[in-house]
């Protein structure tokens, strides 16, 4: 029985089946990106054991659509609402199966001869690559850092996830923060350091702001920007170049007593989003907009904000100069570069670095990339910040596999040439 199982797992037939299925999976995962968006596709196709039925149908429908057969496309919302019915092996299942297949096959066939060294190298490189990518999937954390010239930051911010931050600003020299990720916001909760409880009345994964025009608007909040601005729920976005902007309606209570209701949203905290609102608003909205949403209770002062999740560092980056040149007479970017100063108070380290395209800064386990700019403000740079402990594995794997492939096929070729000569 075991013997039979071993034979199946180590067979070359299985290899071919798995490789072919992988081709199909990657193809479908590519097609599904248009309707579902990259993030959801990664989750459902590549970082899962099985692909679910609805995600699969999104990919198939997109394929049909490209062939000019019109069907109603499946949306990201459909996928998230639908029950999970597994229909096709996902990336993790295929990846692990290939690994098992590869390792068992080596036990079955491998003999340490000179001829097989190429194959052994290729396969060990592939194993390294697969494991490295699996580790990356689990361990990689991506965030970004937005800096205006002259600005210093000790933290980077998540590009996808937001948090509710309740900041106690009573003491002038230090803030005390209670933060809850948006994904965990629900019901009523109270943190031991806070003199009030928070009731979450509504959470929108994606929201758009609207002006409050009537005095008795039921969607308006009583505090902060509430009397002027409210938020409406939007379906989640799927395009690669856009993102969800969450909002939440909160009511704070001290015992039975309500302290009022607040709207919080990234629309109110992120500079480019704030600018969009300000462009369209009149003086009344500008006025409530000018300061953070703060209030006093129990002789302490608090600020409420929904903002990207922050990752704090022991070192800071200061943007000294940002350059963004274009080719003469065109809109084609010629280069971006950020001259930054890296400072680390605890070690006294202090130096200047130039970060530009294809030349990131690797520092303290993180890598800082020149990633973008603000098209409205020429003094702003956006750095992508990545923590990936496995970043070296592909480099190693590439070298190992390439050497292996060259050895293997080189030997084939020599043998062939020899045969042609002698015959």
């Amino acid at each position, binding site marked *: 029985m075991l013997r039979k199982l071993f034979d199946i797992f180590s067979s*070359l037939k299985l290899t071919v089946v798995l490789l072919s299925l992988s081709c199909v999976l990657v193809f479908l995962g590519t097609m599904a*990106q248009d309707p579902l968006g990259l993030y959801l596709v990664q989750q459902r196709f590549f970082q899962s054991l099985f692909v679910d039925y609805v995600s699969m149908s999104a990919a198939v429908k997109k394929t049909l659509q490209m062939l000019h057969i019109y069907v109603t496309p499946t949306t990201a919302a459909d996928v998230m609402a639908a029950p999970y019915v597994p229909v096709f092996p996902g990336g993790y299942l295929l990846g692990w199966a290939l690994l098992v297949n590869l390792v068992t*096959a080596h036990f079955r066939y491998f*003999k340490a001869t000179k001829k097989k060294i190429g194959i052994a190298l290729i396969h060990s490189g592939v194993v390294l690559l697969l494991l490295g990518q699996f580790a990356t999937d689990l361990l990689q954390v991506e965030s970004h850092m937005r800096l205006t010239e002259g600005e210093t930051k000790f933290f980077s911010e998540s590009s996808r996830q937001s948090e509710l931050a309740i900041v106690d600003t009573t003491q002038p020299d230090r803030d005390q923060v209670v933060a809850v990720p948006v994904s965990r916001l629900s019901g009523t909760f109270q943190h031991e350091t806070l003199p009030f409880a928070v009731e979450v009345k509504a959470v929108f994964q994606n929201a758009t702001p609207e002006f409050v025009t009537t005095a008795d608007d039921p969607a308006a909040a009583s505090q902060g920007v509430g009397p002027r601005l409210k938020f409406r729920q939007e379906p989640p976005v799927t395009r690669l170049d856009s993102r969800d902007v969450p909002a939440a309606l909160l009511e704070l209570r001290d015992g039975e007593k309500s302290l009022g209701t607040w709207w919080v949203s990234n629309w109110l905290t992120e500079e480019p989003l704030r600018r969009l609102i300000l462009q369209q608003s009149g003086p009344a909205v500008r006025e409530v907009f000018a300061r953070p949403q703060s209030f006093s209770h129990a002789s302490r002062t608090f600020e409420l904000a929904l903002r990207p999740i922050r990752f704090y560092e022991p070192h800071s980056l200061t943007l000294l100069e940002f350059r963004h040149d274009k080719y003469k007479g065109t809109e084609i970017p010629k280069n971006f570069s950020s001259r930054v100063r890296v400072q680390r108070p605890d070690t006294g380290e202090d130096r200047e670095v130039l970060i530009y395209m294809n030349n990131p800064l690797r520092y303290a386990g993180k890598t800082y*990339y020149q990633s973008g700019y603000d098209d409205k403000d020429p003094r702003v740079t956006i750095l992508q910040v990545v923590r990936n402990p496995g970043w070296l594995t592909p480099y190693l*794997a590439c070298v190992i596999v390439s050497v292996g492939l060259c050895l293997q096929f080189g030997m084939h070729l020599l043998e062939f040439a020899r045969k042609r000569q002698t*015959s």
Partner: protein
Amino acid sequence: MKMLKRLVPWLLLVLFVAELLAIMFPRQQVGFHYRDFGRLPVLLNGRVQPFDSVARNALLQIRGTASVPLGDKKWFEFWKHPPKLRSTEWLLEVMLKPEIADTRPTFLIHHPDLLGELKLHDKGIEKSGLRYYSFNEIQAVVGEIGEQGRRAGRVDAQLRTSFQKEALKLAQAVFLYHRLKNSLRPEDSADFAAEIAAYQSVIKPGLEAAQARAAGQPHDEQALAALLRPFKRYDALSQQAYPLIVPPLHPETHPDEWANVGTALMDALHHGEIPTAMLFFARLANAYREGNAGAFNQALNEYEQWLAPRFEREVRKGRAEFFFNHVQFFLRATITYIFAFLLAAGALLTVTVTTGLAETLRRSAFYLVAFAFLVHTAGLIFRMALEARPPVTNLYSSAVFIGWGAVGLGLILERVYRIGLGLAAAAVIGFVTLIIAHNLALGGDTMEMMRAVLDTNFWLATHVVVITLGYTANFAAGFLAIAFVLLGVFSKLLRLPVREAEAAVAGKAPAAVERAMIGQALQKMVYAIICFATLFSFAGTVLGGIWADQSWGRFWGWDPKENGALIIVLWNAAILHARWGGIIRERGLMNMAIFGNVVTAFSWFGVNMLGIGLHSYGFMDAAFKWLLIFFVSQFILMALCSLPLRFWASYRGGDTSPGPRNGTARNPRPLAA
């Protein structure tokens, strides 16, 4: 007779070489020295290029051709050479004699609904099924065209209908044409030299008056007004003029500060005088309008002499690129590949009938492919030198490079198995990829500057070149597999022993007859090439990941282009394992290799058509139709390959095994062996 057989291949080669030489060393210019004008350097799209490139790319965008034919001929009358306007001649007309240029059949409009909307059905001239219109013919509807274009422009690029795309393209063409008209002088200027001289004379008094007014002192109203009028005129002109034709005033400090006509004339106020180059251009304009070739050539000559010491590098670049445009290396190679393919196919078909003829044909094909390969290589190297870049910088150059690599591979195979197969595959791929490249060039400048993230010769030279070689090898394997199917089903050639065939085409007696047959030889070739495809695809894909890690901070992002590359690697690995496991034999290998064509074409082209991802640098619809046709043709070939052997001409009757008993899956357990 024997002599003749040996001579024919050489004669053919001489013919093609002579044609190339004739183009490289053209006759003396008579009348207007258009070629000299075409060589003059200007700045456009962020790079220095000759007027000729401006003209050529604009004409390709507007008309889809690199010249404007003036006479008429039937498509088969290749011996006729009706007069035509070459790109530079056309540009000069547009810039300087717009009233004549407006009568030329310049605008290509072929969407029936658009023609109906614009009521143009009964106008224009038809050539090979396409309708061309002069500006005069569409002038009445220019407003309508602009409106349609604006409406289409508001729609998201991926959601545009074919009508909207055509409307937008036409609107852009009309706009470009309008800009070109105002690129050397204002379109309505009657005597440009006089206009400039008048402008020069009002600059000084006008500026003095302006300064006086700014200081609150009495000033000459008239002098100010006299300056204000041309200033407004040139301000408007600076918005319209297209290439930056006036070289920088301080090339040593600001080498990029080229200006267009309008800007240069406005800047004259800062410097107090009109740039010297402008004075030359004004002379050129007047001489051209008067039809005075002598004066035109004289002014041109003086301008060249003025430029030479100041802008040595730019002048050299202009001349080199003009030469490159003029010789059209890739077009020459394309034509030669067609002939070579016909000859190679002829050699294959006649090998069993008359061996002497077959060898003559094969040798001719070999010389021609080798010659075309040299021309192709020269073009590639020339392009690299012009751009100072590795060979592949965009989709256009990837097509050129894939063709080049496949032809090189085909030539090597032909040296190993001298039966014409390598030549046929090489010629077909070379021809097809260059046609694809030609069509991609219709989008505009193919040597555009690289955006910041791509601006790295190291990664362009490693990742891009290696991955493109991977595409090349896959296509080469796929086309050899197609040859296998076609030869196998429709001829008996697969059963012909290789040595016999080689000996036959060489016209000698089969001395050492090898048992291996052509079918087996093909199988070996396909297998070997897939091995290399695996190597290049894998290395290229991982290098791409490393580049992405360097520039975006992630090794792998499941971007469509990355996925496409990954599918190729997986498919190659699947083929190799299937063969090693004895799961597929000869025809299975061929079928998988043909499907490799589909996979590779999807990765190379298809993913660019999804309109998503970081790599979608070119969105093409017409190409998509062709891609589908290609896919369907590959599936038909695979069906053909799956026919039972009794339907194969090569295996009909007698022995139905596709090779010697021990030949097919000789190595069923490579790891155990």
